């Protein structure tokens, strides 16, 4: 399942997509939990009883502000969450 957490508002689209099929028996040892400096990820049991990564509820409506530390306005090269997740389950839409 592709889970898109985030939103679109007047200022743009801000989604973190997680390909949760890649979370099942995660080869990176749940690296997302520690890679994000703000600790935005958690492991949940989804509706189909799989243990997968998700963006914590408290961050889902404010990603544009919460991710600013890793995304300077002058441009960025790599994001800790995407680099940490070696199976490549995490993507940012902006």
């Amino acid at each position, binding site marked *: 399942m*592709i889970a*898109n957490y985030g*939103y*679109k*508002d*007047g200022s743009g689209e801000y989604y973190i997509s997680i390909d949760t099929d890649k979370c099942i028996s995660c080869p990176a040892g749940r690296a997302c939990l520690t890679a994000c400096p703000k600790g935005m990820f958690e492991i949940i049991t989804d*509706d*189909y009883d799989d243990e997968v990564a998700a963006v914590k509820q408290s961050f*889902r409506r*404010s990603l544009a502000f919460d991710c600013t530390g890793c995304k300077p306005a002058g441009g960025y090269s790599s994001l800790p969450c995407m680099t940490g997740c070696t199976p490549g389950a995490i993507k940012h839409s902006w």
Partner: protein
Amino acid sequence: MADTAGEKKEYWRWQENCWIDESKDWRSAKIITAGIDVGSVSSQAVICVDGELYGFNSMRTGNNSPDSAKNAIGGVLEKSGMKLEDVHYVVGTGYGRVNVPFAHKAITEIACHARGANYMGGNGIRTILDMGGQDCKAIHCDEKGKVTNFLMNDKCAAGTGRGMEVISDLMQIPIAELGARSFDVDEEPNAVSSVCVVFAKSEALGLLKAGYSKNKVVAAYCQAMAERVVSLLERIGVEKDFFITGGIAKNPGVVKRIEKLLGIQAVQTKYDSQIAGALGAALFGYTLMQKQGAPAKAA
């Protein structure tokens, strides 16, 4: 809030709805399950007998989730002569799903909407758009109604029922009439350019001053709403069959414009589009009961 409003007309107020299938007899059923969807704006209860839809109730959410859940199911129970103890399994869903005191399990509304849409629109449904009171969901699912891709936007009021209520109030047109009024225009206007409901409000007032009729402003807003939700759908990919759930499914002003933008027709249902989440929850309950075997009693 309704009390303090006094004489003020509530244009946003929509019709509550309670229905049971008189042709079915719940007393002869093996498994009775219920789904309760406590949303931020509306609450629904659905009762299924042996995995078939038996009855539902849809009403405005009250001040607290437990009472809203009780009132919602109370309507169906009363109409059918059933007691809560007769229901074997209850699944809560929606924004207030963890606050349904008599539920055995909580399941997210994403999974429930997909499951409910699969029942209401058939197993050919792949794309589901749920336009709820305070959120908007785009869901892609497989032939079993299992979610394969989803997104939910509950940050921004644009593209939600709440946004529609704001416009209904601003234009002083009852919410149920907005759809029809939006087609009663001399020519189809461009969408309002502001996505943000706050800015769209000032833009709407500007359009009225510039000589637009109320209907035309409503049309411009419906078009903006359609464009917005279509952009959400495109993020997850649109595949036939397409189904719309939630309160805004009842607004043809938005639905017809979405269909035009996507170039596909939404599958029609004879049931109330707002019950999809609660129906999905009741169906999840049925599957769980089948797995468990012996019926438990409601808590």
